[in-house]
Every structure is written in C-alpha cells, then in structure tokens.
C-alpha cells in the first residue's frame, strides 16, 4: 500500500530539499501562500534556489515569511516573478536592493504568462504562443510569430522541482480543495512540480470524504501534506470559526 502522504512537521516536509532546487510558491495577496513551509525552508537553509512566485513579497506589514526573506537569508540565486519591484515607485520591496546589487538574478514575467508557463509544464506542453508582451521591452530579441495576422511571442513551459502550496481541505489520497481566492496559482504549481508539498488548513479527511466532482487538485499530483497547527505555532491560521462564511 502507498505510504501516507501526511507528514508530521513542516521541518520534516522540507528536510531533503537540495541546494539548487527550483521551487514554486503559491499564493496571491495572502490566500494560498505557504507561510509555514516557507518558514521551515528559512530554517532548513537550502541555497542557490530558484524561486517562482507572483511576487517576492515584503510590500506590507506585518511581514510573514516570503521569497524576499529567503533572498535576505542568502538562499536564492534567481527569482521568476510578475513583480520584481513594487507597483508604486515610492514603495521599495526588500528584494530590490539585492537585485540592484547583482546578488540575485530576476526574470520578470507577465502574470498570465507565468500562470500559463506553469500550466504548460503540468500539461506536457513544452512551448506556446501568446499575445502578451508583444511590442514591449520584454519581447526584445525574442522569437515571435504571426498567426492569422497577429503577432505572438513564443514562451516556454516552466517546470519546477518542488511546489509549496496552501490548501483549505484535503483527503488522505492528497485530493485538495482551495477556498475562494486561495486557488490562484496553487493547482497549477502542483501540476508543474515533481514534488508537491501542501500546508492544509483543516483536518485531513479520510480518502473518499471529498466529492470527486469538487477536487481542485487531484491527489496524484500531491506527495506531502502537513496540517497547519493552531497559533502561535501555525502561521496565518484560518479555521472554520474564524471565517465569515
């Protein structure tokens, strides 16, 4: 029988992550962000990481564990994000000074292209064309193609070694449900990664407890799950009683 996918601690879930790993971090403006796994990775100390996320984080206080902290901790060689600087020029992300000093490489990718490159990796599509970024600095020197009279940019799949994601509910088979805007990049990263590690908000249910019609990421994509403990040990704990709905 397959071993259990449930791991007892965040430290155990990330213990074997090697230097040089390519890791995708789910989440968008809070929901879906794997704060607890990221904190465990800060402690674990793997280096020369490539981090894929919507943003490097750090724009808001109080600050929770984010890719920017991994950068500050000297663990990151490269980030692939749709924000490598803040939207307002007056804000400065913590990441920016490392980037400007040349200590960390950054690949800036439009958000839809980032999502589609992850989706392509998970779907076995090595490359595709998109209208996004045509005519901009991001397209300079890159391959384009005219299809039915419109110019498109060639983009490649973005496979990951590991995905860190956060889900609402899970069953023992690894089937996941995300609640509302928690979904965002999470299922895409889970499909793009060879090893998907999930922090789960609610108690992990027996296999079969979730309706097969309402699974947002099938268990075949999920290898490890850790349930988020109550605070203060668990970060950003959202339990049923704390939700409006």
């Amino acid at each position: 029988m397959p071993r259990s996918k449930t791991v007892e601690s965040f430290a155990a879930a990330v213990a074997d992550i090697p230097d040089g790993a390519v890791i995708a971090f789910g989440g968008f403006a809070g929901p879906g962000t794997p704060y607890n796994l990221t904190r465990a990775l800060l402690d674990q100390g793997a280096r020369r990481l490539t981090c894929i996320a919507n943003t490097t984080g750090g724009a808001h206080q109080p600050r929770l564990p984010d890719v920017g902290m991994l950068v500050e901790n000297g663990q990151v060689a490269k980030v692939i994000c749709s924000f490598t600087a803040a939207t307002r020029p007056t804000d400065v992300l913590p990441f920016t000074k490392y980037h400007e000093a040349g200590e960390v490489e950054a690949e800036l990718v439009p958000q839809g292209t980032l999502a589609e490159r992850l989706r392509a990796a998970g779907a076995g599509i090595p490359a595709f064309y998109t209208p996004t970024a045509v005519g901009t600095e991001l397209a300079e020197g890159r391959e384009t193609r005219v299809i039915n009279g419109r110019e498109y940019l060639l983009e490649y799949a973005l496979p990951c070694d590991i995905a860190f994601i956060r889900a609402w509910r899970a069953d023992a088979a690894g089937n996941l449900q995300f609640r509302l805007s928690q979904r965002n990049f999470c299922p895409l990263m889970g499909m793009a990664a060879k090893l998907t590690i999930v922090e789960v908000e609610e108690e992990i249910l027996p296999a079969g407890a979730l309706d097969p019609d309402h699974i947002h990421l099938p268990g075949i994509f999920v290898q490890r799950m850790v349930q988020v403990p109550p605070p203060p040990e668990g970060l950003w704990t959202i339990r049923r009683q704390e939700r409006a709905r």
Partner: protein
Amino acid sequence: MSGEGTGQPGQAAGWDRQQMADRLAREFQDGWIVNLGVGIPTLCSNTDLGDRAVIYHAENGVIGYGPVLPPGQEDLHLVNAGGQNVSLKPGAAIVHHADSFGIIRSGRIDVTVMGAYEVSADGDFANWKVGGAKGGGIGGAMDLAACAQRVFIILEHVTRKGEPRLVRQCSLPVTARGVVTLVATNYGLFAPSGEGFAVRELAPGISLEAARAATGAPLFG
C-alpha cells in the same frame, strides 16, 4: 462636484479621484465584464450604474466580486487583485490563475481600467517600470492591455513636477502599444487619436488652454 476654479494653483479645479473613476465607469455597458486595476481604477466599482449590471473580474480568478467588506466582516480567503477583502455577488464563480488569464487572453474582458505613468497619442501606455529601475511590477497589466476589448486609463494629468503624462511618445518602457482608447485625468476625458488627443470632455474649471498647456501632444477640441 469639486472645482469651480480656473485651474490656478491652490484652487480645487478639475475632477478628484472618484470623479475620474465615475466618468470612465459611466462608459460601462450592461453585461460587460470589467477588470479594475489597483489604485484609482478600483473606485469605478463605487459608481452607481443604475440598471446596468457589470461583472467584475479579478486576475486571481474571482469572477463577480462586489463591494469591499468593512473591517471585522472580511473573509480572509477572498481578495481581489489589489488584495482588498471583497464580497461576492450572487452568481460569482472562482477559477484558477490559468483559466483567469484564459478569460483575459481570449478577449472576454470588455474593458480594463488601469493606472499609468504615461499615455501616448498612439494609444501606447507605460505603467510597469520607472526610469532607471532594474526591476518592474508587471502583474497582469501586459496580459490585460494586450487582450482586453478596450483599455481605459486613469492618471493625474501631470506629474508632481508638473510634467505632462499625456505625450506624443512614451519615454518609459511601454506595457502595450496602440491599445488605449479612453483616458480620464483630473483635467477631463481624452481619446488618443494618433496625432494627439481628442478632448471628449473637460472637467469643471479646466479650460482648453489650460489643458493644452499641460499636455505633451496636440489636443483637438
């Protein structure tokens, strides 16, 4: 309405932020799917559209969101693309990021309203990178700009140093080319026309002369 003045310094001439947003929102048609960018564009959702129903779409896959919820009533699992804790309207649906941008790229967004640093007479605009910066903040702006049926821009007519933001050619790296059809500023409503900008409406207290003096491209009244 603010602004009975003549555009002189110190006087409250022109539209305020909500009025700029209101003016663009009044262009929304019944049934449109609308994506609002972070900042002033989010104020469009405050505008009373009467019996016209629009559907607000956010990049993170929320289709059909409603007003921002007051503190204490937020659902922490629910944010719009600006990170605000919004509500859902009846008939809302959630999709993941790839499907959300599939909606954008396939042309289902009737209008996107965004902020910008500059808009050119050709309908180019720039909003992701400031001069000399090494990084940038693109987010979903390039996807929306390239693929929405219409791109509306809201910005202050001039920079803090008084330099025009409506220009012949963008000096900053562009987000997309030739896509902007309507621009609201504190001075009024303008449409890129290739040679310059057509004046669709001037805000109260703004004269055509004052607008011309503050614009980096010809204005056609």
